[in-house]
């Protein structure tokens, strides 16, 4: 697909991510980022052609404990007496949806929000319920035990070592020290990661992300309006998503075919031929350490099975050839399902030169990636540019 019109990201906002936000309910959490992004862009809900036309919210009935979990949000996203629609996947898919709404010609300016308060319920229980009930849920699988089987197969197939996975954790927590929104910045040693409690072999506590509460919002606009709203619009140059099979045994978990296909779609649209050379910075949705290595392979930053060597060579470190997750990523604490929209927001800040201490100097092209479902069943890839 080739785009005939440009869609820009004109503003982004994040809460600080925290282990628990007991003082705020979901609407208040979302309002925090909506208010910030409205202030940043100067936008309102005016219906004279200058305001936000519609909202796409990303929320989840199980997480919020409310069926039709978007209904309480209508008031705080400008949905009162106006259009609002919900995406129950990762927040990056909500951005995709808003992008398509604008390309369709139906709307010009669309607000996207995502929120989750993981602290108010139990992730493993929700993940268990995400499995189809007859053959997988009954076994007691959750995303962590499924990810452990993916990690084991991937590491076994390509000789990826626990040390290489631990390096991802050390890098993420260290990068998080430069990110004021990050939940758990930390100086960790490889030994501390490798000595942390085994949860599901080969994954240890520090190979997984901490429980996290937070929200993120972005605003997308059609080209001519985007240019009026900000002098630093960030253009969506390419976007692609792809689903793989739900049954774990249908896939070879050491590969990530749906990511390869999603990336191919995004790269083809953006005219990217050599992602490692052409992309300056990447924000990748990895909730487990090994996933950053596997996803860098799927994204074509290195060949299949080379993810371990990529981090060994320092390519993905700050200051490396292609820094991955300067924000500290999900491993430093991001709410599940908000993870991908945060990646879009962080990639945007990088391209606007507003990423502060985590800025990759001179970044012109950035990649944002989201995974969703057990073992990265679905992926969404965005190529952003100035």
């Amino acid at each position, binding site marked *: 697909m080739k785009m005939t019109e440009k869609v820009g990201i004109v503003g982004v906002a994040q809460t600080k991510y925290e282990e628990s936000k007991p003082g705020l309910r979901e609407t208040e959490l979302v309002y925090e980022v909506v208010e910030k992004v409205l202030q940043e862009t100067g936008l309102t809900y005016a219906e004279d052609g200058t305001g936000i036309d519609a909202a796409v919210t990303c929320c989840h009935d199980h997480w919020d404990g409310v069926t039709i979990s978007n209904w309480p949000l209508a008031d705080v996203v400008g949905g009162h007496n106006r259009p609002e629609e919900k995406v129950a996947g990762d927040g990056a898919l909500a951005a995709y949806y808003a992008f398509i709404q604008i390309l369709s010609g139906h709307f010009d300016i669309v607000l996207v929000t995502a929120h989750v308060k993981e602290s108010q319920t139990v992730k493993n229980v929700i993940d268990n319920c995400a499995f189809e009930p007859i053959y997988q849920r*009954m076994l*007691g699988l959750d995303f962590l*035990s499924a990810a452990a089987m993916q990690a084991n197969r991937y590491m076994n197939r390509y000789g990826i070592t626990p040390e290489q996975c631990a390096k991802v954790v050390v890098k993420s927590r260290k990068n998080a020290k430069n990110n004021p929104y990050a939940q758990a910045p930390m100086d960790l040693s490889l030994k501390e990661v490798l000595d942390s409690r085994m949860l599901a072999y080969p994954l240890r506590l520090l190979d997984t992300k901490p429980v996290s509460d937070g929200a993120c919002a972005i605003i997308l606009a059609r080209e001519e309006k985007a240019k009026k709203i900000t002098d630093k619009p960030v253009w969506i140059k390419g976007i692609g998503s792809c689903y793989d099979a739900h*049954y774990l045994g249908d896939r070879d978990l050491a590969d990530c075919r749906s990511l390869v296909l999603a990336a191919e779609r995004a790269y083809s649209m953006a005219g990217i031929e050599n992602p490692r050379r052409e992309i300056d910075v990447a924000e990748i949705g990895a909730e487990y350490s090994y996933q950053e290595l596997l996803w860098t392979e799927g994204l074509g930053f290195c060949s299949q099975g080379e993810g371990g060597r990529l981090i060994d060579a320092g390519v993905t470190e700050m200051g490396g050839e292609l820094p991955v997750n300067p924000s500290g990523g999900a491993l430093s604490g991001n709410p599940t399902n908000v993870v991908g929209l945060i990646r879009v927001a962080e990639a945007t800040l990088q391209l606007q030169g507003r990423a502060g201490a985590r800025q990759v100097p001179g970044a012109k092209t950035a990649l944002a990636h989201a995974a969703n479902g057990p073992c990265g069943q679905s992926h969404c890839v965005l190529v952003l540019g100035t």
Partner: protein
Amino acid sequence: MLDRQEEEQFLFPGRIIMQYKYAAGLVGSRFLTELRDNRQLMGIRCPKCHRVYVPPRLTCKECFNNLDEWLELSGQGTLSSYTVVYYSEPFHPVEPPIFYGIIQLDGADTGLPHLLGEVEPESLSIGMRVEPVFKEKREGNILDIKYFKPL
């Protein structure tokens, strides 16, 4: 910004109790009947691309063809991955440590995730051969296979 005052935080405990009756469906019912009555694992084959699926489903995900060719599998297979779960959740069918594997069944093109038994963490390896152990009292669900054990 929101003007956050230091207020007492009220947290309301909630619990949603829902009852479901999930249909195993057209092909699942046949699969579960064979499992319960005959200790027999069945695969279903795509007439076009000849992929054999376990668990069975109505359509081939690659060709979108209807599937209706059943075949009996020996139940033996090869471990394509495994994990040992050391934490405990209310939805777990057994106490930790819990051994899970994905078993590439002989004659099938897909793997079947299931429990592993009669194993130790050190005795497990990818590629090891396994076979199912059935429960004496079977009820027509996937846990009629108690676990897969080393051959």
